[in-house]
């Protein structure tokens, strides 16, 4: 009379063979080939010990990228973005707990293996020239999955607009194209943020740590964090205190991607499941169309 438990579970098993079977196969995270920075990768090196918090970079960025002034932080008298937003592709934040304090710059990290480009359906966000994560609005439907994906909370959305776009630092791609450096590094009076190839910046960061023992947290943030980023950080305050997530060396999109690719590798599992389902049904159909077993 009743469907037996075994039959119900068998049905699930057939229906979900692909998902259950392959997702269950332990995916050795370490064995997955991880992307490496492109040969022409450029980026930023921000040294928190040098930054005086003048925010010249914030204004220069707004100007270079035609961003509107941002009075949301302190009211209409001040152009003072308090966080990344549709009006600010970079901001300077302050950490001060009474004992230690540090300024901190936020902008897109231009990950070696970005979660946002993994998320993006048509590749509106993509690593293009110099490994910079750039945005093509013609390929963006405004789904905002990139905002869910980014471990650094970087992509922002123009909520107030009728034709909204994603807003994020593209490392002044229009300036890079004509051989100029990004606006934030050009304007910085203390060279707290500098522009260069990723390998040069990494070397410089290591040199600074070695030259002044005790001055820095002995780690270059972005060298391996989240699979590595093209924007690198030096700091005298622990990185997690100044708003950088603790990610480990594993790229943020690796887990979701390995499951997805495990299930759909070569599209074998879906095709096999489709064939199996059709065969099962044809066998059921043969003796008599509506026979109940």
């Amino acid at each position, binding site marked *: 009379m009743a469907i037996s438990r075994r039959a119900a579970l068998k049905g699930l098993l057939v229906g979900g063979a692909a998902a259950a079977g392959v997702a269950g196969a332990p995916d050795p995270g370490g064995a997955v080939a991880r992307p490496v920075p492109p040969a022409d990768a450029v980026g930023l090196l921000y040294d928190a010990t040098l930054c005086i918090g003048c925010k010249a970079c914030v204004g220069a960025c707004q100007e270079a990228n035609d961003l509107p002034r941002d009075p949301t932080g302190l009211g209409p008298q001040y152009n003072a973005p308090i966080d990344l937003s549709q009006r600010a592709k970079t901001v300077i934040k302050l950490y001060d707990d009474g004992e230690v304090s540090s300024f901190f710059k936020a902008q897109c990290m231009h990950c070696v293996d970005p979660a946002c480009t993994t998320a993006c359906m048509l590749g509106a966000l993509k690593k293009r020239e110099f490994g910079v994560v750039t945005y093509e609005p013609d390929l963006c439907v405004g789904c905002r999955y990139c905002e869910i994906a980014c471990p650094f909370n970087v992509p922002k959305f123009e909520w107030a607009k009728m034709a909204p776009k994603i807003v994020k630092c593209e490392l002044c791609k229009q300036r890079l194209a004509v051989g100029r450096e990004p606006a934030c590094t050009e304007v910085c009076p203390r060279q707290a943020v500098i522009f260069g190839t990723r390998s040069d910046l990494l070397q410089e960061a290591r040199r600074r740590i070695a030259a002044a023992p005790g001055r820095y947290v002995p780690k270059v943030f972005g060298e391996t964090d989240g699979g590595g980023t093209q924007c690198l950080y030096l700091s005298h305050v622990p990185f997690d205190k100044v708003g950088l*997530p603790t990610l480990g060396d594993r790229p943020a999109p690796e887990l979701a991607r390995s499951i997805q690719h495990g299930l759909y590798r070569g599209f074998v599992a879906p095709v096999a499941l489709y064939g199996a389902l059709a065969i099962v049904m044809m066998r059921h159909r043969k003796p008599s169309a509506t*026979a109940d077993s």
Partner: protein
Amino acid sequence: MSAQAQPVGGSFFSPGVRILSGIAGLGALAIAWRLLRGLGATTALNDGYPFGLWIAFDVVTGTALACGGYAVAILVYVLNRGRYSPLVRPALLTSALGYSLAGVGVALDVGRWWLLWKVPIYFWHWNFNSVLLEVALCIIAYTVVLWIELAPAFLERWRDSQVRLQRRLAVVALPALERGSVWIIALGLLLPTMHQSSLGTLMLLADSRLHPLWRTPWLPLLFLLTCVAMGYAVVVFESAFASLAFKRRPETAMLASLAGAIVPIQGFVVVFRLADLAWRGSLGLLFSSDVRALMVWAELGLFLLPVALLAQPANRRDLGALVRAAIAMMGAGALYRFDVFLVAFSPGTHYAYFPSLTELLVTLGLLAAEVMAYIFIVRRFPILSGGPGMAPERQTAS
């Protein structure tokens, strides 16, 4: 399949439908408001919570509630339980409506909806790393498949139509659909298996920002299991609703064994989740004072409630108890999905989200429109049939 399916007939504009049309009307106004004013002015969505009610409920939960067609198809076509075939058409109808309206939800949610057509067309730009792309393409394809699977219900009626074109269409299309049915039904089984599991993979991309109580590589399996359980629950609920609304004899025995089939799934989900939490060393989080722990307890309770209800044999013969169990099952799956998409996601302390009035009205309006469309179609087209061994009861048109 359901040769004995008959239109219910009767008048469409019952008092209930008038109330529904009022809700749907408010929803239509809310939709117009969103399209005229943009997302920022009309929703509570923000850069911390870019996914809100429309994604978490209309799409992620709505399509799971629309898995009746999938769940019954597993039973009838894969397990060859032909006696459940009277449930196929009504289940397909709720599925087709649910998926279609989830599509409306997506179109309203995305900021650049006029470019949506590019997603299925621009294949040379497809990003095969994107779980969302797979979900989108699968859902589009499945919505088409559902309407094709349901097409015979419309064509059978058009066969006797006064309109020549409808008659011709029926004569040509019905045999073609019959010949291709195995391949279409197989597609109707494959596509939900793919995208319902991928809906779980979707939030795994949030990685470190997804709370460890829900962050498990088994999310795809859990999403698949819950959508099947929710699918069966919806069929029980919908069938009881139809018997009540159209004064038909309820198919209590069939629904009881259907509900019974969900018990092992529900129980398995609970055991599996606890084992998975223990395996990942996160079991202790269940006893933290975090509100998230409470949400998981609520989920587990809702998952076990129908198991407890249906453990008593007397309840299995009682339509009311069956419906209560079905509602608990739908609630369990819905809360689980809601939690994964909204509660488990932590973008940082200075973001908060609670749906705006516009968002709520759109969601309620779409639900009302769905129920109205269901009533309209079952009254005019052969969807519902009497249970086997039971004379097809015709409603006395009043």
